[in-house]
């Protein structure tokens, strides 16, 4: 039982079983939605046009929009994803997430119960992550012009250390650590897609990563760069850092953990786990002498218990990544063209 379980939707469902255009129209209905649903769920939201808060030192800021379909999937929903995704983007900057804004675009006709469930999920996830939702916005679009609910969250975090965590900080011989097995989020979403449905016990890996990341920093690990592996999967994360850091990254495919069920689904559907989306996995580039310390720290946290070394920065051609295949041959790692799957986050 959590603090959120006893709530029920405060909007009179009999009167308004669905979201109406008027709920975004600026009048009484919108006011009711804001006060009875959003303010009741997000106690830190300022009763004003914007939020004002004190802040000193270096801060990080990020924004992301969430359009995942289906809205509810094994291991999460669009609400928890909208919090985790932005919290994790802050964590990858080496920041402690503090504040979030939540902006929603609702489609006319969205069941009020669905909106309530998503709002509750956002509130609970933010609470669990230790972040405060301090401002927000709601718009309603005509039926057929949205897909139920789209969410944008912007996050602000504080940076309590002097490390510059960025691709340009990565150096020769740095080691690449992967925080756990890959492909769970993409496969969990795919398993529920219309036209593809298949039975699997795989759940999304969506989870917050700032606590293990800050533990790395606090333990004194020389963290050079962090990247969460969302759309485009591990490959996009690695290729992007190789390019922006102008370095060569070499991975060992046999060292990359993939759950059997994820592998099985990928084999059947003709997909490559290296390109499948994750929502709770990251890679860390660390000084080679700090690898065992980093692994010790990560293994103490549930979200990163499967952390392992998958590669290193080498003197190959700068700006690109290569990988040793399971049979011991080398090839390049190239970002995916087009999309492997539509709308997974």
């Amino acid at each position, binding site marked *: 039982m959590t603090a959120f379980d006893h709530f029920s939707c405060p909007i009179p469902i009999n009167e308004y079983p669905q979201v109406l255009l008027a709920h975004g129209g600026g009048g009484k209905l919108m006011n009711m939605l804001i006060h009875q649903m959003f303010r009741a769920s997000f106690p830190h939201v300022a009763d004003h046009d914007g939020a004002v808060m004190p802040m000193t030192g270096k801060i990080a800021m990020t924004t992301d929009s969430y359009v995942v379909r289906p809205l509810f999937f094994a291991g999460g929903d669009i609400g928890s994803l909208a919090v985790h995704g932005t919290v994790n983007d802050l964590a990858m900057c080496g920041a402690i997430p503090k504040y979030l804004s939540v902006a929603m675009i609702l489609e006319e006709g969205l069941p009020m119960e669905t909106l309530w469930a998503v709002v509750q999920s956002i509130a609970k996830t933010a609470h669990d992550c230790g972040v405060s939702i301090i401002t927000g916005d709601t718009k309603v679009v005509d039926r057929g012009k949205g897909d139920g609910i789209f969410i944008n969250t912007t996050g602000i975090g504080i940076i309590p250390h002097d490390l510059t965590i960025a691709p340009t900080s990565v150096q020769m011989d740095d080691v690449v650590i992967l925080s756990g097995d890959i492909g769970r989020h993409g496969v969990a979403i795919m398993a529920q897609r219309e036209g593809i449905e298949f039975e699997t016990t795989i759940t999304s890996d969506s989870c917050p990563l700032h606590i293990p990341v800050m533990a790395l920093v606090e333990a004194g690990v020389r963290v050079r760069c962090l990247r969460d592996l969302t759309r485009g999967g591990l490959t996009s994360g690695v290729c992007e850092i190789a390019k922006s850091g102008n370095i060569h990254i070499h991975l060992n495919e046999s060292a990359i953990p993939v759950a059997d069920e994820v*592998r099985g689904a990928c084999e059947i559907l003709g997909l490559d786990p290296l390109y499948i989306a994750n929502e709770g996995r990251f890679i860390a580039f660390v000084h080679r002498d700090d690898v065992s310390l980093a692994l010790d720290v990560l293994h103490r946290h549930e979200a990163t218990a499967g952390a392992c070394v998958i590669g290193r920065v080498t003197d190959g051609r700068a700006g690109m990544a*290569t990988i040793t295949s399971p049979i011991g*041959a080398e090839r*390049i790692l190239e970002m995916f063209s087009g999309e492997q799957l539509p709308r997974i986050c």
Partner: protein
Amino acid sequence: MRYIDEYRDPQTAHEYAELLAKITTRPWTIMEVCGGQTHAILKFGVDTLLPDKITLLHGPGCPVCVTPVELIDKAIEIARLPNVIMTTFGDMMRVPGSSTDLLATKAAGGDVRMVYSPMDALKLAQAHPEKQVVFFAVGFETTMPATAMTVHLAKTMGIANFSLLVAHVLVPPAVEAILSAPDCRVNGFLAAGHVCAVMGYEEYIPIAQKYRVPFVVTGFEPLDILQGITMCVAQLEAGRAEVENQYARAVQREGNTSAKALMTRVFAPTHRRWRGIGEIPLSGGGLSAEYADYDAERRFGKVIYGDETASECLSGQVLQGLIKPDQCPAFGVRCNPEHPLGATMVSSEGACAAYYRYRKGHTP
């Protein structure tokens, strides 16, 4: 993972590489027909383990790549009609027609849907009786049984708002076309294991005898391919030209007899144009007279074939094994997956896409 890892074992792979180096005394050129094998070869780096004397050529086994432009244009034309749902496999969506592709047609408002099985298209037809649902049926003998079963069910269940735009192609006529070309360099073939799982491999025996080339029915994992190449080289070195089966865990000599029986009933061999190659006699599977009512060309007009326009794209030569993808002057320069000049750069089984994704000028 069982049934996967044992076929990707590095130790065994290197043992095969050593064995191959030992038995290879002369230069041999071997063609893997199937695009799935091409991708496995490039992805796992199987070719980098081979002795220098062995050259792998990549064959025409990418059905999406060989589907003629006119058929794609027809699919696009149908998809633009009101009250039509056009369905096809994901791979087909991005293949360029003469001016656009199905994905862009979808973005422009056409109802185009990706399906994993033709049965999903039939379900759409049941769910939308007010619409015409068309399945753009592509594939070799691997996907033909599923198409056959779907149209057979549509007929049995009396679902009239469903039809097929058929682009099915057959492997053996294409192999014969390659072998009978005057500049053919191929000494031996790896036959596609999944095609043979359906069809068996008896139809390759007369081809092997006629052209004096060995065939090895081969699977898709790296060790399958290495073993297939080893068996093929052993035949070549011994002067044999037989049909052997490496993929015995999935393929029987006679194939899947019930699938073949249904295919024979639903499809009839027809002349088919191959993109970049030209017409190959009796190389396509068209609907038989019994199922001709389900032919989308009957409902929406026949496909009109023109002359292949000259293009910078050399995919036709790639598909016939005359050149390798990176020997094309446009490769990686004016042709890449974002701006493909030809289908071989788009499809997940296309040889150019495989070279771009796994090699792109990088010499391991």
